[in-house]
């Protein structure tokens, strides 16, 4: 038991193992071991006052590689992930070239393995070149390890394409189709949520209905196919209500919310600040509160960051010329702790469930999300739930387009253990 690491005195929060108690956790040889087996020479880290949980899992990341390495690479994105407490991330396929074939998937997997900072579970495109029409070779990508497919950035063109995709993947075990719900004809040219603020700012709007129409369409197709459907970054009260009903009807539908949709509203855009330009757009306080309620009652299953790095010069422009997106890996945990756990909307246990346990299940990351038990791979996060910090550069991400920039968060990652290795110690990346 060389390399033994004993994390002592932390509050262990492990929804998968049904635990919430102060305990010591021993890590050795990449695995969790019984604490009582700790050798006398083990490296001991005092974690009293801190929370120890299964490493976070981001089911929705943009790592930009291959193609836009100026914004992010797999390595810089994985470092940002580790600093944010993530031990697994799922990069979306809208790279250049698109991850619509096994070769690109293998490339991303290799880059992730080389970085060695967290596990990378690439999402494959549903359609070739994300054209929304012609199905990509899903089987070959499943063989390469893909468990989730999505054309994230846009919805598939027609219900027929979705029907075929949901039906075709039944040939494989536990494969999920994830949809970005947006109707182009209603959302066309839209820069933000359509409402009071878009009217006042003179910006073209995206009405709630541009999302809800596709959510309703996709749920209908899930009903038709009895397929396994996941809905990405829901932004409207109507959308979560549709999902709530679909779940009550017993459909195999899950849904995601992002930290920024859980925190901000369209009122934050009144100075044309492009940091808040995201897609789907930030909507009203009523919508945000409905998404929060859906996270509380289980209608929303997972939190995904939709970490979307963009170069400074791309964001520091006229509002309608800026690309949508905010980075999120380094702020997700702090945002959820500050805005949902601290006000008492959810428990720390529920926070870990939506940030780790449930997304691990969603993307098929069986070595993540807990339980924290002897013999399991040691993918862990240790965080200080009370530490106050101001979000500001430098970030580990290559980009700094954060909607949380300048805000104060309470709760920050102290250590991240990935496959038994301390990749983040005392809030600093170890490599």
């Amino acid at each position, binding site marked *: 038991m060389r390399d033994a690491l004993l994390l002592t005195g932390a509050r262990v929060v492990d929804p998968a193992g049904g635990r919430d108690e102060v305990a010591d956790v021993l890590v050795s040889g990449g695995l969790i071991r019984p604490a009582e087996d700790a050798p006398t020479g083990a490296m001991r880290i005092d974690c009293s006052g801190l929370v120890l949980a299964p490493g976070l899992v981001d089911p929705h990341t943009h790592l930009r590689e291959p193609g836009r390495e100026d914004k992010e690479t797999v390595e810089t994105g994985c470092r940002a992930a580790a600093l944010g407490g993530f031990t697994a991330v799922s990069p979306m396929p809208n790279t250049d070239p698109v991850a619509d074939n096994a070769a690109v998937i293998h490339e991303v997997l290799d880059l992730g393995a080389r970085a060695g900072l967290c596990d990378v579970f690439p999402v494959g495109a549903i359609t070739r070149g994300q054209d929304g029409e012609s199905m990509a070779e899903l089987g070959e990508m499943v063989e390469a390890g893909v468990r989730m497919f999505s054309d994230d950035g846009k919805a598939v063109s027609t219900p027929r394409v979705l029907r075929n995709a949901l039906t075709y993947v039944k040939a494989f075990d536990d494969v999920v189709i994830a949809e970005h719900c947006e109707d182009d004809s209603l959302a066309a040219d839209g820069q933000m949520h359509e409402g009071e603020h878009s009217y006042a700012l003179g910006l073209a709007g995206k009405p709630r209905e541009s999302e809800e129409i596709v959510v309703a369409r996709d749920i209908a197709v899930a009903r038709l196919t009895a397929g396994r459907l996941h809905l990405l970054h829901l932004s409207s009260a109507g959308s979560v209500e549709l999902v709530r009903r679909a779940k009550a009807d017993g459909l195999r539908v899950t849904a995601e919310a992002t930290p920024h949709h859980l925190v901000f509203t369209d009122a934050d855009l009144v*100075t044309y600040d492009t940091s808040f330009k995201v897609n789907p757009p930030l909507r009203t306080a009523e919508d945000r509160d409905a998404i929060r309620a859906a996270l509380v009652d289980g209608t929303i299953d997972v939190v995904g960051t939709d970490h979307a790095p963009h170069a400074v010069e791309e964001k520091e422009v006229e*509002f*309608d010329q800026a690309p949508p997106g905010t980075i999120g890996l380094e702020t997700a945990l702090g945002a959820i702790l500050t805005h949902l756990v601290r006000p008492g909307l959810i428990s720390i246990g529920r926070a870990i469930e939506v940030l780790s346990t449930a997304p691990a299940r969603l993307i098929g990351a069986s070595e993540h999300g807990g339980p924290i038990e002897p013999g399991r791979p040691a993918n862990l996060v240790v965080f200080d739930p009370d530490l106050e910090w101001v979000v500001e550069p430098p970030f580990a991400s290559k980009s700094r387009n954060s909607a949380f920039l300048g805000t104060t968060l309470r709760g920050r990652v102290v250590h991240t253990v990935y496959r038994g290795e301390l990749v983040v110690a005392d809030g600093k990346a170890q490599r």
Partner: protein
Amino acid sequence: MNKHLLSIHDVTAEDIVRILDTAESFREVGTRVIKKVPALRGRTVVNLFYENSTRTRISFELAAKRLSADVINFTTSGTSVAKGESLKDTALTLQAMGADAVVIRHSSSGSPLTLTKWVRGSVLNAGDGTHEHPTQALLDLYTMRDRLGRLEGLRVAIVGDVLHSRVARSLSFALVKMGADVTLVGPPTLIPPDAPSWGVAVSYDIDEVLPKLDVCYMLRVQRERQRQQYFPSVREYARLFGLTRGRVGLLPEGSMIMHPGPMNRGVEIDSDVADLPQAVMEEQVTNGIAIRMSLLYLLLGGRAEEVSADA
């Protein structure tokens, strides 16, 4: 007054009266043989036009020159912008050259506000996207007050593509601020969904509105809106909402017809109607120079005694 003029929301009713009154004294300058006062001598005004505009750019240029300011016209074709320079870098360049005021026209809503982050001088919005065009609204108010003697209680219809019109927005906000009675008229597809919150009335029937007006303000309707299916054809638009020869007789005696230009004769307004004596488009242009002189003068803090002094 605020340092910048980005929106009609930046000025109070009292500010508006002051702007119009100051313009009144500047209009006289335009009638002199030597149309120049030294109020802004040694100051630099930059016209930064990202969108084509002949009348607004020339109007601002003349206004600044009549105040003896140094004027730089920065249009986007054939410049660093055409070579891909960003708004930020252009702004920093202008800042480094010591611009006291930047007049910006841009197709992106909010660009004038964004510009204030990078320049220290005053920023004047000369039209941004579908957001606002405050100097146009102020010159229109000036023209109405000049002709009709008041703004309060004035009955004004703004007719046409209100949805995409920065002029209609600024003008509505300004008129409501001054106590006028505003009705927006157009096909429902071209009326903003939030119009009721502006404090204005909405009508889809121009014939019902015309007999009750002091001012009929026509907006330019782009043919492109037909392609986007906001209305079925230009022919039908003109028939239902155009100020036609047959319809103009519904306007009460003494009422005015206005248009911000450029006009689409035969679409929103018949050619003969545009040439009637009650159509005051040329006065709007003349008054535009005086209003812009007034704004540059007030925003740049010129001194009152310089107004009367001959150059």
